[in-house]
């Protein structure tokens, strides 16, 4: 069959309302019609979910082989030469009849009023619609799908049925959103999205007949029902029943496609803004290729800080106060001041939320203007750098949406549900499709609840297990030989290094059973496997060992560069990938060039007509240390107010002693108050720029808000400054111009057309698909024990703990979660401390962590303390955190603790 013929078979033709349109087999009638731009009304259907067939608003008449039927178009598959009539009077009457019914339980005084388009909230109602029933007082007014459907059905102005208001209470005591089921039409979209897409089942359809309604199964708050506050249900709700509480009544005057910069997934969101140029709502973009409409509590509710700008103009410190200034003064001052320092005494730091253009121009500024290589992002996460040793690129492989096609998903030392949420959504989807979910992590995280294998290795022995699996794969002869031949390099060295991984030795030292290793080897070699790889709680050498062992394993099993596979790096900074791609790193130059490689340096010198310093630069941690050691005397920090390491008191102390500090931010913070120069930096809605996510997708975040004030992007600030100093090469008229230069320097970005990015972004590809199989090292128990002293806290967090009594103590503004804390320890550890089951104990680590709870003894993981907290506790804190900066969420850190017995708990309430 020729492809042409195939294509013919693959597209059918149907006739809708007299118009011939193409359709794909398997498509439903409504999908085919929508693709062809024909509107068929619908309420329960949503493109992101399976059809449901409940509202019956989408009814059409179909005719196949002369047989006529009235069917729901959202559930009826197309067949060739089907004749569909969606607007006959019979169909219209039927819809009207159903809408009549629906109106009888939805406030509709306004919906059936001829003045509906004219009426405003303050108008005197001539129809005596009570205030609570008016559309103008509904939070979804103007963006309500129901209203659109009613317009289409051409409802009569009266309905013969008696209206019945449900008189249900409004649920307003959860964080972030209000539920008013008086407005609910029971389309069940919310329940379906929570179940089908998010797999949380926090809400359900309750009761039946006329009283059927959605909600939490026991009528509790969402905090108790296992909700992750992803907002997916709000986004799909067609009515005002589910709405975000913040800016609830605000009308959007503008919608902009935007990219979330709270984590490296880079969710595509639709940002709604009001007349005052405030960002009022974030809505998952169902056409987004990085997230397919999903987002998380941070994307949905964690971007409000952009509305709280309090740095509005440049400021210069004079004496003890920072006084209003202007850009000329600031540029003049800085350009003069930098001459006071040697290149090695100056450093530039940028938040990982910065754009690619920011990173590019600021490293160029550092290297060309300041002649220093002390440039980095404020992120200690080194995971991507370890990737570059095996892949030649600091980047992972794989596509987020493709995770659902995996046969196995292996999650190692990371907590994607909280830190890279949307990644976990598609991992859970794989689980639902029948994939094996294997969690290798001793902490109880949400993904352990989906896992069919949870391997609770002591935290630092992960790489041993992984390499042992590799060994077993070779032993069983089940490696992917073809793949290795095409993509693997230095196989022999790697194989030799595996000799150290004796299964019996591993068993005796780490209690990892040989059977398990053999089993895992079979599973991984037996199907497409995706690795979600983090390095939580590991030190440098352990991390690099783990990364290389996982990449090796993926390579020998052929689990790279194909459907349903890949190694996904679980780092935290949103645009860390971009910062490395563009050389915003001490020793990495743009385009993955190395400062130690003469050819690389020459290339850039020729391009920029420059003379780059090849003196090794300092990274973030080294810079902090050098500040304390007074080796760094001048510092630029941009876009950051939550680099925890900078915010430590000791560090702030030494920063305050710097000779020159420039801070760029939108909001005042403990760092900016120390600055000699404070400059107003544009927040993401106020600037345009690209970011690169963890699947290497370059995405464009356009400028959404105009402002009269002169905020600048980081790149604009540095380019203006450079020009003031006399570097003409920094003359960019737009972020596109910066990007065009990037494309010339970074080969991998060459094929990315800035103009086309606004749809779904574009992934850059590895130019070579060769993997260096680095030799691996066995980490012996002794070595590890020397690294860790004391009892190690394995802090977990899950959405729902059915076994716990949870009490929500309602406060005026804030709810507090109170629950029994269960702290688990090994009998041997308990013996030394003279404790027994049921004792009330306190576990603490200096002043940074303290928790009381009841001791439970179980025979797992000697040397550790295990405690699992509830997501609801974190989300209540999150919702209460400062409104003027993007809230961060606490890592599930590994800490060493001391334990003591107490008589009475001081913190029953956390």
């Amino acid at each position: 069959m020729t492809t042409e013929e195939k294509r013919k078979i693959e597209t059918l033709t149907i006739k809708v309302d007299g118009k011939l349109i193409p359709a794909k087999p398997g498509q439903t009638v409504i999908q085919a019609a929508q693709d062809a731009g024909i509107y068929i009304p619908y309420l329960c259907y949503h493109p992101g979910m399976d059809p449901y067939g409940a509202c019956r608003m989408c009814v059409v008449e179909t005719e196949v082989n002369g047989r006529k039927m009235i069917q729901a178009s959202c559930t009826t598959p197309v067949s060739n030469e089907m004749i569909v009539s969606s607007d006959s009077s019979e169909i219209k009457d039927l819809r009207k009849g159903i809408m009549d019914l629906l109106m009888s339980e939805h406030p509709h005084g306004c919906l059936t009023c001829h003045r509906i388009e004219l009426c405003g909230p303050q108008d005197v109602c001539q129809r005596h619609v009570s205030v609570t029933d008016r559309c103008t007082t509904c939070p979804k007014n103007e963006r309500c799908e129901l209203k659109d459907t009613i317009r289409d059905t051409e409802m009569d102005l009266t309905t013969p049925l008696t209206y019945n208001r449900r008189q249900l209470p409004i649920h307003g005591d959860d964080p972030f959103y209000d539920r008013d089921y008086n407005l609910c039409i029971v389309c069940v979209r919310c329940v379906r999205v929570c179940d089908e897409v998010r797999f949380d089942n926090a809400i359900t359809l309750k009761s039946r007949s006329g009283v059927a309604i959605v909600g939490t199964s026991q009528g509790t708050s969402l905090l108790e029902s296992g909700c992750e506050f992803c907002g997916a249900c709000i986004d799909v709700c067609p009515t005002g029943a589910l709405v975000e509480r913040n800016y609830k009544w605000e009308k959007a005057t503008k919608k902009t496609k935007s990219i979330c910069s709270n984590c490296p997934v880079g969710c595509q969101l639709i940002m709604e803004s009001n007349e005052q140029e405030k960002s009022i709502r974030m809505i998952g973009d169902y056409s987004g290729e990085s997230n397919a409409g999903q987002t998380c509590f941070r994307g949905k509710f964690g971007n409000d800080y952009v509305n709280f700008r309090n740095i509005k103009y440049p400021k210069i410190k004079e004496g003890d106060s920072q006084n209003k200034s202007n850009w000329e003064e600031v540029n003049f001052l800085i350009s003069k001041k930098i001459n006071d320092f040697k290149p090695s005494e100056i450093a530039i730091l940028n938040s990982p939320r910065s754009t690619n253009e920011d990173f590019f121009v600021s490293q160029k500024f550092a290297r060309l203007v300041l002649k220093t290589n002390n440039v980095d992002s404020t992120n200690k996460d080194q995971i991507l750098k370890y990737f570059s040793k095996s892949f030649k690129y600091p980047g992972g492989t794989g596509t987020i949406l493709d995770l659902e096609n995996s046969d196995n998903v292996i999650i190692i030392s990371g907590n994607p549900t909280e830190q890279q949420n949307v990644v976990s959504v598609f991992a859970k989807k794989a689980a639902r499709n029948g994939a094996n979910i294997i969690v290798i992590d001793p902490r109880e995280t949400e993904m352990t609840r989906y896992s069919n294998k949870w391997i609770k290795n002591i935290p630092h022995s992960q790489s041993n297990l992984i390499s042992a699996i590799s060994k077993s794969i070779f032993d069983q002869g089940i490696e992917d030989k073809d793949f290795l031949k095409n993509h693997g390099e230095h196989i022999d060295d790697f194989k030799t290094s595996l000799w150290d991984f004796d299964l019996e030795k591993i068993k005796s030292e780490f209690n990892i059973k040989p059977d398990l290793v053999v089993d895992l080897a079979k599973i991984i070699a037996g199907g497409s496997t995706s690795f979600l790889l983090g390095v939580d709680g590991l030190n440098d050498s352990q991390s690099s060992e783990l990364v290389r062992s996982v990449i090796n394993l993926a390579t020998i099993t052929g689990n790279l560069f194909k459907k349903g596979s890949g190694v996904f790096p679980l780092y935290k900074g949103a645009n860390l990938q971009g910062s490395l791609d563009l050389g915003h790193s001490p020793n990495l130059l743009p385009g993955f060039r190395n400062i130690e490689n003469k050819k690389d340096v020459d290339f850039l010198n020729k391009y920029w007509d420059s003379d780059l310093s090849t003196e090794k630069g300092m990274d973030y941690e080294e810079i902090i240390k050098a500040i304390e050691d007074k080796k760094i005397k001048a510092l630029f920090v941009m876009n950051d107010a939550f680099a925890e390491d900078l915010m430590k008191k000791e560090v702030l102390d030494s920063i305050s002693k710097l000779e020159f500090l420039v801070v760029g931010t939108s909001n005042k913070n403990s760092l900016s108050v120390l600055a000699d120069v404070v400059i107003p930096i544009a927040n993401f809605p106020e600037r345009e720029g690209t970011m690169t996510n963890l699947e290497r997708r370059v995405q464009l975040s356009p400028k959404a808000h105009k402002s009269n004030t002169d905020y600048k992007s980081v790149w604009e600030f540095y380019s203006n400054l450079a020009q003031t100093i006399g570097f003409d090469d920094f003359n960019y008229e737009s972020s596109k111009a910066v990007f065009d230069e990037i494309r010339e320097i970074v080969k991998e970005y060459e094929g990315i057309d800035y103009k086309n990015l606004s749809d779904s972004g574009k992934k850059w590809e590895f130019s070579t698909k060769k993997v260096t199989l680095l030799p691996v090292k066995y980490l012996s128990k002794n070595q590890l024990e020397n690294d860790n002293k004391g009892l190690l806290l394995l802090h977990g967090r899950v959405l729902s703990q059915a076994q716990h009594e949870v009490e929500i103590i309602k406060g005026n503004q804030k709810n507090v979660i109170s629950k029994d804390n269960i702290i688990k320890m090994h009998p041997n550890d308990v013996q030394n401390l003279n404790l027994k089951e049921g004792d009330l104990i306190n576990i603490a680590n200096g002043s940074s962590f303290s928790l009381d709870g009841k001791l439970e003894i179980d025979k797992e993981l000697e040397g550790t303390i295990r405690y699992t907290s509830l997501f609801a506790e974190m989300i209540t804190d999150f919702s209460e955190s400062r409104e003027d900066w993007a809230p961060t969420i606490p890592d599930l850190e590994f800490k060493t603790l001391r334990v003591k017995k107490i008589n009475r708990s001081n913190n029953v309430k956390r």
Partner: protein
Amino acid sequence: MSEVFNKLVSKVKSQDFDEEILIRVGYGASGQAAGSIKVYDWLTNNFKSKGEIRLVGALGLSYLEPIVDIKIKGKPRVLFSNVDVEKIQKITDEYINNQNYLKEYAFAQILQDGEELLDNIPELKNFVPFKYQKRIATRNFGEINPESFDEYILTGGYKSLDKALNSLTPENVLEEVKNSGLRGRGGAAFSTGIKWSFLAGNNAPIKYVLCNCEEGDPGAFNDKGILENDPHTLLEGLIIAGYATKSSHGHIFIRQGHNIPIENARKAVKDAYDNGLLGKNILNSGFDFEVEVSLTGDSYVAGEETALMEAIEGKRSMPRFRPPFPAQAGLWGKPSNINNVKTLSYVPWIIENGANEFKKIGTEKSSGTAIICLSGHINNKGMYEIPFGITIKDLLEKVGGGSSTGKGIKLLQTGGPLGGVLGKEAFDVVMDFEEMAKAGAILGSGGIIVGDQNVDVVDLIRNLVAFNQFESCGKCFPCRLGNTHMLDILDRACNEKSIKGDLDVVKKIGENMKVGSLCGHGQLGYNPISSALKFFDQEFIDKMTTFTIRDEKSKIPKMILPTRTRP
């Protein structure tokens, strides 16, 4: 007979015994409700030493329960009706001790070869209403202990299974069922053979045949009846269905709360496994088949085929949309077939006696019998297996014995709450799927509730609609809200609060539900009203358009509606 089966039968036979006195106590749900437990207890305490006492299923003559059947060797079985502890003492004293069979208590006798007829008591086969029956699916009712595998074997049970498995191909069996003209007894009356052929044509390795014993219709108790009185007949039919459709698994799906059927079905399945009639290589034929008994919670709609599948999968029992149809993707996404209890219970007889014998019974398009449950204002309340073709009038007068209140019969409510009502004009119609549907009410699963002249039709319909409203699963809008409003309006009518135009609104809602609803529950929800309007429109018009205030006494008592009908 295959060798394996032969062995099984002779093993059972060798255990059979021959008692001097055998007393059967009717222990079906109707018997139990009427007090047969007390009678049985009394007998076991006082009579155990003198004879064998057995619990057996119900005969179907519910109005005569508790029924005790006493067999003295050499004499016909004598059946006593409405027995209580006092009566049983007398009966045992007089009959067993003194050979006096107390004809005032005895209502029928069953004669076996060589036995002499007792005077003054009719033979059961001539006893009205029993005599109008042709017992196929209910042939063992009152004869055997439903919990006894052995007794079932002794009455010829599982012979058809052996025949099907060991001397017929699946295609033969399917052909036979097709030719018999057997149609589904669950409501829609679809040809069983054709339905099976959809599944048989699918080559998937795992396929399900499901048996539906949700039976939530008020006034219907024949599915429960079969499981209460003779569960093996159903099981045999189910296994044969599995064989004919080349399926691998079967489920008997029973509504929670139908306790006797659940226990009996579980026991029957266990006994069948223990005797090699389920599991691997059944009767050495190479056919493997597994059966499980599944339960659902309290939901009428769970009886709808796709909702039933959702329930088995552990989900809320709400109907799925079609396509895909069950034969393409049913339970767990695998091809499935679903049949009613009664439908499957005919199958063993059809295989044993052949399609032609079955076809001979009944009318041209409705072959075989209908298992009718008579209740309401009628004398002979009970369950009767009557060949199709009898007129409604005969059914009421002859089988039913006429109105129990002496006020004359005004209407029948048939086909459950989604069925309808038939008025006097329709009493000449013959019982047949098509004829009854034409007359305005479907036969459905065989429940018939009789109403006398005093019945207020509007109130009766309000009751049915209230049931439908309460049971609507809540998924699709037309049914969830349509039923709610129809009930509201009927409620108004019964409380003399009708509003102008109410009748038209009901009609419009009903028509919309018919075409617009997702499943049969909503699609058929208007039936009670539309059929009632056909026969009794004046009553509706009176109530809903003339707003006369009637005197207090004739006012209809407030109906007890399900606690909440709206949030």
